[in-house]
């Protein structure tokens, strides 16, 4: 059976894939469907949803189109989530591979640094970093990655420790391959599957962290973010709850979608490796 068909057999994975596809479609079509500044005022303030079909989800306190904000927010969530997760996975895989492959003092030093990062709660780390450096999209990405690379680093190191004892690594040394080439060309690719298996959880956590930072006013001020929308809506929670509920639901569905689709992929590849 093809991996795709096996993937489609699990209803959770399909639900996840649909949610994720919707999110990606929103992010990609945001500037087509809602060209111009999503933060521009387009109508009366606090228009409730489903009243005016040119503004289907109504407007916020300042009269901005909620649907446009939602679409542009999807873009920020996705971009930050993917970029932060990618940075965390790359840094983690490289650090873990170096530590596991080099052993000795290098391993000791790298793992102490990993310990140090791991003892600080990752959200606190992100908060402190953004507060010091100042909020912008790139800083938020780095801030989130700062707290998440340790997990992939540990998993990569454990995997590398077992792989480096294999004959083919000795074989690579015998033909005179450079140790760095052995670590990154021969060992790392074979250590990646369990590291990549963590990516769905990491992306989901990164999206949540970005929303939380924005909620606290530490997101990029020039971009619409769901966390920022929820924070905005909080001021009028009693009179216009939809302003917080709509981006809140979008956030929950996104995190759920990423998680379910990711688990589906891991499941499918795990089954395939188990069979061969």
């Amino acid at each position, binding site marked *: 059976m093809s991996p795709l068909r096996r993937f489609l057999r699990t209803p959770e994975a399909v639900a996840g894939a649909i949610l994720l596809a919707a999110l990606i479609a929103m992010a990609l079509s945001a500037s087509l469907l809602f060209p111009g500044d999503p933060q521009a005022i387009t109508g009366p303030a606090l228009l409730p949803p489903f009243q005016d079909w040119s503004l289907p989800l109504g407007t916020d306190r300042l009269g901005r189109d909620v649907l446009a904000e939602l679409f542009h927010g999807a873009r920020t969530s996705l971009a930050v989530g993917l970029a932060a997760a990618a940075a965390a996975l790359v840094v983690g895989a490289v650090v873990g591979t170096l530590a596991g492959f080099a052993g000795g003092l290098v391993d000791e030093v790298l793992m102490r640094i990993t310990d140090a990062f791991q003892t600080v709660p990752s959200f606190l780390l992100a908060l402190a970093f953004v507060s010091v450096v100042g909020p912008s999209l790139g800083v938020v990405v780095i801030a989130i990655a700062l707290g998440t690379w340790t997990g992939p680093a540990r998993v990569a190191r454990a995997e590398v420790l077992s792989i480096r004892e*294999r*004959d*083919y690594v*000795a*074989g*690579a*040394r*015998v*033909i*005179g*391959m*450079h140790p760095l080439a052995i670590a990154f060309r*021969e060992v790392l*690719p*074979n250590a990646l599957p369990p590291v990549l298996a963590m990516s769905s959880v990491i992306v989901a956590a990164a999206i949540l962290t970005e929303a939380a930072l924005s909620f606290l006013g530490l997101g990029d001020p020039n971009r619409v973010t769901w966390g920022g929308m929820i924070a905005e809506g909080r001021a009028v929670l009693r009179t216009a709850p939809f302003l917080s509920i709509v981006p809140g639901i979008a956030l929950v569905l996104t995190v759920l979608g990423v998680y379910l689709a990711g688990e589906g992929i891991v499941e499918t590849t795990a089954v395939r490796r188990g069979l061969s």
Partner: protein
Amino acid sequence: MTLLAVSNLTKRYRRGNKTIAAVDDVSFHIDPGETLALAGPSGSGKSTIARLALRLIEPDDGRIDFEGGDFLALSGAALRARRARLQMVFQDPLAAFNPRATVARVLDDPLRIHGIASRGERPRRIAALLERVGLTADLAPRAIHEISGGQRQRVAIARAIATKPSLIVLDEAVSALDVSVRGEILELLLDLQRQEKIAYLFISHDLGVIRSVAHRVILLDAGRIAENGDARTVIDAPQSAIGKALVAAAPRLNRTGP
């Protein structure tokens, strides 16, 4: 001139709170184009000697001279360059290659690393290597796990001879192969030795095979040399207790061989 001279080689491992000598004050030499066999019971230190000679692990004591130079004094780029002359073939040809590799990549690596052929020239060299070990060039794009065990061991030999070594360490290199394939691989090894004057450090527990391919043999017992001498002489009339035990345990000594 001797090719490889090992003197007073010692390697100790900690086991619990006491240390055991896996290799204990071992000295031997190999001449160019010669086959020296290492035999002995399981755990007697054969693989440890192989790994020491290849600088995959470092000895606690002793000296290794290879091609007239102090081999243990080499490090970094100088050691990697010298490795071209001292190659190895492993027992399990599947474990010996990166599971993601193709035949072409496995053979491309040594040619590239040692600057033996330019990028454009390498495919031709790879084809020639494959033909030299009795395979066809159309095997090159295949994945390592797609070819048979015998073909894989031929690829391992092709990789070992790619850098024109003077010595190849064969650690149970034919033990995992079935009998007919084993004969063919031994034939190939003997042919390479005749043509290119390659010396072998030939590790095997099969005294019949050793008797038919090796010039000299060393019998090891618990990390020490128990007996050594001309392969046929030692195997036909062992003097040491361990030699007698090994010969007695050999199922049937094939005295004709290839």
